[in-house]
């Protein structure tokens, strides 16, 4: 297949794309003047994919945390730890697992061809033994314990737990100490074979590279390997009720002040591609107008000592779920929630002003352009959008095309207080009713 050239004059970037005969989709974004090359090799497979099958075969249910466990185990090869190879080639390598994808990456300034080959080869070569699988359990157990001690992590994921009854987004990405001890090499291979098929993966290379050379290298690399053809992957989720599971979720941990995150679970989901991207753009502008650091609500909450600089807001949306996450540390979660509701209810009546809208839109456009300085952010965000059928580089247009009417409509649609869930982490002594 030929190389496709995608030009984005608005952001002064040119992207190249080629789909390999194996089905692997490859993107290259040359950045003139950059010393480093940053590459990600990603599979559309994350912690939520815990019940699946390939078309024509029965579904399987796998232990929680297995996608993350698999990510850890990929670094082991019969020749030893792949980190050693990357180090020798001057590359710093890493990986991460999120709800819906697993990403392997390196960043290097030299030996780019060797490092690219290493990245592709180690991810396309699983090596699991009973011994190396068991050894990993102690390490991951400590990773889980580390997060258990982290109140910011607990309050954030506590909110997901409060919102969702059955969708696996409420399950910790790393699983639990109990669930990881159920993992064995057979199940790991099964997950690997399903989700690490080239048709389910994207290679993204950004930095001081020549696109032609990269495509040639990948083409030759893939031609040396054979991949069985695979049917469509079926991901199965139990139906998710529209209501929140618990309106209030509380956990005790020693903290200097309670931490309170709240958000609204949306019932209208199923958006994908450009439609989802547009919805994200509108919602992010809307939330910034209501909760951003220059909003009247933020300043009045700050003046009353109800929030600190840790107060933040975000919007998470995929085809299956969509919700906001708002909050931070506060001396009084109930007072904070009361004030927020009061202010949002007023805004629902008055609507958002043209001036506030334009200011926030500008801010989002600037933030987006600043993000394009970072190869890491580009690769990560591009893949995230792509797996959902969207395009990172068209995000500027979405911000430019949003109208005040759409933002006001989104405001009214999002703030349905029946859909509110609250997550609180506080010390034992401060526990409220």
């Amino acid at each position, binding site marked *: 297949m030929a190389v496709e050239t995608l030009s984005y004059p608005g952001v002064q970037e040119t992207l190249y794309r080629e789909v390999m005969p194996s089905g692997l989709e490859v993107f290259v974004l040359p950045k003139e003047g950059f010393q480093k090359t940053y590459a990600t090799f990603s599979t559309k497979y994350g912690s939520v994919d815990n019940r699946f099958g390939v078309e024509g075969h029965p579904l399987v249910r796998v232990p929680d945390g297995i996608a993350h466990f698999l990510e850890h185990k990929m670094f082991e090869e019969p020749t030893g730890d792949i980190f050693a190879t990357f180090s020798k080639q001057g590359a*710093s390598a890493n990986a991460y697992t999120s709800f819906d994808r697993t990403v392997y990456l390196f960043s290097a300034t030299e030996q780019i061809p060797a490092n690219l080959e290493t990245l592709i080869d180690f991810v396309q070569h699983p090596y699991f033994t009973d011994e190396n699988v068991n050894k990993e359990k102690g390490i991951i157990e400590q990773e889980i314990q580390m997060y258990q*001690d982290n109140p910011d992590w607990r309050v954030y994921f506590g909110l997901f737990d409060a919102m969702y009854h059955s969708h696996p987004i409420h399950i910790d990405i790393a699983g639990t100490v109990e669930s990881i001890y159920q993992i064995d090499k057979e199940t790991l291979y099964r997950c690997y074979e399903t989700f690490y098929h080239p048709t389910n993966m994207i290679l993204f290379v950004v930095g001081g590279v020549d696109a032609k050379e990269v495509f040639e290298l990948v083409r030759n690399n893939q031609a040396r390997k054979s991949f069985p053809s695979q049917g469509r992957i079926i991901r199965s989720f139990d139906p998710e009720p529209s209501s929140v599971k618990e309106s209030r979720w509380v956990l005790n*941990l020693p903290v200097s002040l309670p931490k309170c995150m709240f958000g609204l679970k949306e019932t209208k989901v199923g958006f994908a591609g450009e439609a989802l991207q547009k919805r994200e753009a509108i919602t992010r502008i809307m939330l910034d107008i209501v909760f951003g650091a220059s909003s009247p609500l933020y300043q009045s909450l700050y003046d009353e000592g109800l929030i600190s600089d840790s107060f933040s807001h975000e919007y998470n949306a995929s085809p299956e779920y969509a919700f906001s996450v708002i909050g931070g540390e506060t001396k009084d979660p109930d007072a904070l929630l009361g004030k927020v509701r009061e202010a949002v209810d007023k805004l629902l009546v008055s609507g958002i002003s043209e001036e506030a809208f334009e200011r926030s839109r500008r801010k989002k456009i*600037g933030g987006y352009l*600043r993000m394009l300085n970072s190869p890491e952010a580009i690769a990560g965000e591009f893949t995230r959008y792509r797996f959902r059928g969207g395009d990172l580089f068209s995000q500027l247009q979405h911000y430019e095309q949003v109208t005040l009417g759409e933002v006001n409509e989104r405001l009214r649609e999002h703030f349905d207080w029946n859909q509110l869930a609250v997550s609180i982490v506080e010390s034992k002594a401060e526990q409220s009713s």
Partner: protein
Amino acid sequence: MSSTKFERGQVNRIRLHVLPTKRFKTFAISLYAGIPLEEKQVTATALLPFVLRRGTSRTPETIALRERLDNLYGAGFGFDVFKRGNNQFIQFRMDVINDAFVKTDESLLAASLRYMGEVVTEPALENGHFLTKYVQAESETLRKRLESIINDKIRYAAERCVEVMCEGDPYRLHALGNRADLPGITAESLYERYHQWMNEAVFDLYVAGDTTFEEVRSLVEESFKLPSGDTGAYKAASVRAEAGELKTVVEKMEVKQGKLNLGLRTGIAYADDDYPALLVYNGVLGAYPHSKLFLNVREKASLAYYASSRLDGHKGMMTIQSGIEIDKYEKAVAIIREQLADIEAGQISELEIDQTKAMLLNHVREMQDSAYEMIGYDFNAVFSGSTRSGEALIEQVKGVTIDDIVRVAKGIQLDTIYFLRDRKEA
């Protein structure tokens, strides 16, 4: 390596460093203001940037001031308070997009420098001092910030380890100061401290982006109303080599995982000739996933998820940190000490050295792709009186031998072991 170089000059008390480059879509602005770290002043100095960000004489109200940032296409603005060597630093940063990408009437670089200049040098005042309401609100913010240190157990343990290690040294102080000092700080007393700071701190202002030295100089002249006079200079901290008797501290708290931190003295400072060898030492020991700590504490013994070492070249200190199962404390300490002893005995493979050098060189080269990293590296050199350029560092790292690493290892002494564990009885 690229040939981009900082062009330098002086505007009133400010040392100005400009990096003209077309590589980025933004302008990066960074101001470092350092003043000796002192117990009596540490809290007041820490409070300054919190109050300064609230309002300027031209835009005294916080909402209006923040709207100015939004209108500059969401320019990033932030500050940090930290300690380095014997100094307490306030750093202000701005990140604004290059005008080429948007339709705008005013230069975003000019407006950003005006913004930072106003925030730092023309604060909102009433009756000849800071606004009382801002000083009160920000004292509260700082108090909460100081109290919240305990929430992040990994960071808390790391800071406690340094505190124990630096008993009797100003470096034991937290960069944000002491909670107990806050009630004694008033709008008047803080404004006095501000004046002192404006006259005594050393100011280094960095700008990187598609601009020229001349353009930046004239913008800074217009926007930064600092007193005229000497720029001042930094004095290098003395780097103590002797650790004395090993200090061991165990603290109990509600944690599921034990946090083990070790503090060591290296006797080597950032500007010293042996510093590149110390960097390689640290890489072999614990900076990377190929390092001895990662391999032996994590991969071989499955004791931890993280096990690493970190250098503080400005104080000649090194720290080791790991999160472990609580009853594995003795075992973890033993494995860590074994790694230190192995390096001292020269048990280092060629592969470990090659890997470490390749990683260090890659890191130095990658700095070129980030304006803030280039600025940070240059400022470290300016601050420590080192003349070592990135190119020179690469050459020196390449030349490090096993003998150099062993020599460095012989000078490293374990000073402190700090362990944060659960409340259950041992």
